[in-house]
């Protein structure tokens, strides 16, 4: 039996591979990221936090916080 395809996750220059099945929100929590501070795109499309990740999905996390020195 072949190993189930993983989900590739990219945030800027960091990369991870995770098991499919978790939701976008669970993925952020798994990586220790605040769901308020990141958007999740799956295979190039923005998805809501309850979207379940499928084998072979390519996830790009988009950091939304920006700002200069205050």
């Amino acid at each position, binding site marked *: 039996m072949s190993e189930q395809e993983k989900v590739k996750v990219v945030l800027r220059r960091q990369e991870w591979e995770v098991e499919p099945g978790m939701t976008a929100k669970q993925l952020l929590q798994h990586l220790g990221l605040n*769901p308020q501070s990141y958007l999740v795109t799956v295979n190039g499309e923005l998805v809501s936090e309850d979207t379940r990740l499928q084998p072979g999905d390519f996830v790009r996390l988009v950091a*939304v916080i920006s700002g200069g020195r205050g």
Partner: protein
Amino acid sequence: MKCRKCREKAVINMRQHKLALCKPHYLEWFVEQTERFIKKYKMFTRDERVLVAVSGGKDSLALWDVLLKLGYQADGFYLRLGIDGGIRYSDESYEKIKTFVAEHPGTQLHVVDAKEMYGESIPEVAQRSRRGRGKPCSVCGLIKRHEMNRIAHDLGYPVLATGHNLDDEAAVLFSNTLHWQVGYLARQYPVLPEGNGFARKVKPFCRFYERETAAYALLAGIDYMYEECPYSEGANTIYYKELLNKLEAERPGAKLHFYLSFLRAKDKEGLFANWEEKKVELHACERCGQPTSAPGLCAFCRLWPEDVLNKPSEAFVPLTLIGGLKTEPSEENATTS
């Protein structure tokens, strides 16, 4: 999660509004809300020319995009800072903005290149002037404010729009409250009226969460600069935003309530109504004419050596890009027809 309007799959859930929307309805909602905020705070009308300060980031490019969709006379202003930071930060940002301009024929982008115009990039002038304890951020802020005001004034824009979102405003409010900066608290508002030679300053995105402006930029297909300014690492603003997002994760709507309650206290309950700003006598800068608190040169003009200040006025005319075509300053009014 389903879109509240059409029951198709939602792409974003805004817990503070208890509102989930699909892509087409989110794009529609975002544009409609921007128009609502512009009218609510009486920011500007369709008869007024608006200069949008753009950085290449999500907020400013999204703002420019929405204003154009709404039919406002919106042009862009970009200050080339000359920051590299190992990621070609300024070059990449400029590329994103030029791409945006190319995709929006008829728009104008006015560009001030600090190095070309004043002889030094922002990090270089910060190092020479020794302002900002090794970071160029205070010099950057000073130069940005001066140049935005100068270009708006010289090119006849009565309104200057920035892409500040609710997270920016809440972080500033939090910081000013922590330090009880009463003067700053009294002035913080979505609109700063024109006066003393300055254009009216407006923040049409002041009620959107930062993740909402990012979502709009992604969904509208705006190619923006993901990388942050290399000098922003460790910035207080980012720290306060992260703190507020921790609160928001536990208490949906906390950020919105914090900011809107502040505005309501000012508008309806007279917070700061009797606060009188210390009257500082303003003088016109001897060189540039912008208001300054002390006679002589303003803080901006004091940054530069005499040979820069004595350059002919033509040297300070911005480069203008129109509809994706690069033109020389003398051809500023050329069209692409």
